[in-house]
C-alpha cells in the first residue's frame, strides 16, 4: 500500500430501505447512517452475517439500487461526485471510467464469444482491436479459462467458469475502484488462488476495493480493513 494514499470514496450517513408497493407499501429498512471511507490501495472487507445488507450496500454504491438519503462520494475524473444526487448519465460515466463491479452472476448477450465479451470493455473505451484482444487473452489465461472455450459463448460453461468470465470482464480494465460481491464463491482452491492473485495485484497497484468474501482464507489474503455493517447499525 502506498504511504500517502489518498481517499477515493466516502460514504456518509447512507440509508437504504425498500418499499414494497404491491404488499401494502410496507417499508423494509436495510441500513441507516452508514459512514465509511476508502483509500487507494485499501481492500475493505464487508463483514456481518447473511441478510445484514452487504450486497445491498455494494449495489447502492454502484447505483444499481437507488438511495435517497446520505452521500456516496466518488473521486472521479479529478473531482468528487455524489452518486446519490448524480444523473444517470454521470453514473454511467463513473461506471465506465472509475467504478467496476463484479456481481455474483454473469449476465451477457447470448451468442457472443467469451473472448469478445472480455475484450469489449476495452473496445468501448476506444482501445485498438489488437490491444483489446491481447489483454482479454491475457486475463483469461490468468484466470485459467481453457483456450478451447474462448471462442464459445459462456452460456454453457460451468458455474465456476462463468464466474471467472465475469471477473475477467471487469478486471480487463484497470478501474481505480472495484466492488466485489463474493468473487470466489463457486471456485475450487486453485482457481480461488488465481482470483486472489488478481485482486492482490490490483490492490498493490493502488486500486481501492470493497468486497464481500465469505471465505476466511480469501478474506485474510486480500483484506486490509474490515467494516461490520451490523456494528455500524448499532453504533448509529
Amino acid at each position, binding site marked *: 500500500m502506498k504511504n500517502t494514499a489518498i481517499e477515493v470514496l466516502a460514504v456518509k450517513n447512507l440509508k437504504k430501505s425498500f418499499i414494497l408497493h*404491491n404488499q401494502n407499501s410496507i417499508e423494509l429498512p436495510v441500513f441507516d447512517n452508514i459512514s465509511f471511507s476508502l483509500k487507494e490501495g485499501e481492500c475493505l472487507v464487508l463483514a456481518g452475517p447473511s441478510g445484514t445488507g452487504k450486497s445491498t450496500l455494494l449495489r447502492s454504491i454502484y447505483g*444499481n*439500487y*437507488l438511495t435517497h438519503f446520505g452521500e456516496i462520494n466518488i473521486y472521479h475524473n479529478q473531482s468528487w461526485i455524489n452518486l446519490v444526487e448524480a444523473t*444517470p448519465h*454521470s453514473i454511467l460515466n463513473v461506471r465506465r471510467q472509475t467504478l467496476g463491479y463484479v456481481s455474483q452472476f454473469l449476465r451477457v*448477450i*447470448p*451468442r457472443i464469444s467469451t473472448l469478445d465479451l472480455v475484450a469489449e470493455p476495452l473496445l468501448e473505451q476506444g482501445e485498438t482491436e489488437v490491444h483489446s484482444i491481447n489483454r482479454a487473452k491475457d486475463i483469461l489465461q490468468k484466470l485459467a479459462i481453457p483456450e478451447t472455450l474462448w471462442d464459445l459463448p459462456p452460456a454453457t460453461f460451468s458455474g465456476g467458469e462463468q464466474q471467472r468470465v465475469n471477473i475477467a470482464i471487469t478486471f480487463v480494465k484497470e478501474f481505480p475502484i472495484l466492488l466485489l460481491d463474493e468473487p470466489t464463491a463457486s471456485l475450487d482452491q486453485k482457481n480461488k488462488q488465481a482470483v486472489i492473485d488478481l485482486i492482490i495485484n490490483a490492490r498493490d497497484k493502488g486500486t481501492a476495493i470493497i468486497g464481500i468474501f465469505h471465505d476466511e482464507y480469501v478474506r485474510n489474503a486480500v483484506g486490509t480493513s474490515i467494516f461490520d455493517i451490523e456494528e455500524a447499525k448499532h453504533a448509529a
Partner: protein
Amino acid sequence: MTMSLQNPLLKVENLSHYYGDQIGCENINFDIYNGEVLGVVGESGSGKTTLLKLISGLLCPNAGSVAFDTRIEGLRDIYKMSEPERRLLMRTDWGIVYQNPKDGLRMNVSAGANIGERLMAIGNRNYANIRSDSSDWLEKVEMDLERMDHFPETFSGGMLQRLQIARNLITKPRLVFMDEPTSGLDVSVQARLLDLVRGLVSKLGIACVIVSHDLGVMRLLSHRLMVMKSGKVVEQGLTDQVLDDPQDPYTQLLVSSILPV
C-alpha cells in the same frame, strides 16, 4: 461508444398528445445523448408507440416540443421546421425501424434497391457506388450477398428486420428509432438481432430509442429505461436500477411479473 456530457442530441419537453379525450401520452420529458440507448417499456396501450411517433416526426404533438441537435444550427424544434427540412432530417440523420418490416420496406423492389434508396434520396447518383455500399451493408447485417437482387417477399421475418436495419443505417444516422424490433421473431433470431443491433450501435456511436415490452431485451440493450403507464412516464433511470430496484408501484408489478427461464 463515446458518450460525453455535451448537448443532448434530442430534447423532449412537456410533450403531450391526445386522441379526442383519450390520453395518448402526457407531459413527457427526457434527453438523449450521442451513443446512448434509451429503452421505453410499458404494457400495450401505455403510449409507447404514440411517443415514438411524436419524437420521430410522424405525429405532430398537441403540446410540448421535440428538439433535435441539427448539424448546422444546433437544437431546433422539429415541428417548427419546414416540411422539406424535416423530411431531409428523416432521410439522413434519423432512422426508423418499424415493428412490422413491411411498413419500413418497399416490398416490390429488390433488397439492394431497398438499402440503396436512402443514398439516392440524399443525392447519390453513381450506381456502382450505391451498389457497393448496399452490398457492404448487406454483409454487415449478416445476410447472403446473393440475396441482393431478391425481393423482400421471399425473405423470412428475421431477414426482413435485418434488411430494414441496413436500409436505415446506410446513411449513418445519428439517431435511430426502433419499435419492438425483435417482437415477431423466434428467440434464436432475436438473440442474433440483439447482438447485431448492439454491435452496430456501439461501433457507430448511434443513439437509439427502443420501444419494447420485453424487459430482457431492454436489460441487454439499453443504458437508460423509461417506464410508461396510461400515457405517462411513471419511472425513468439507469436500466439495471429500474429493473433491480423499481420505485413505482407499476414498475414493481411489471418486474415481478417476469417469468424466469
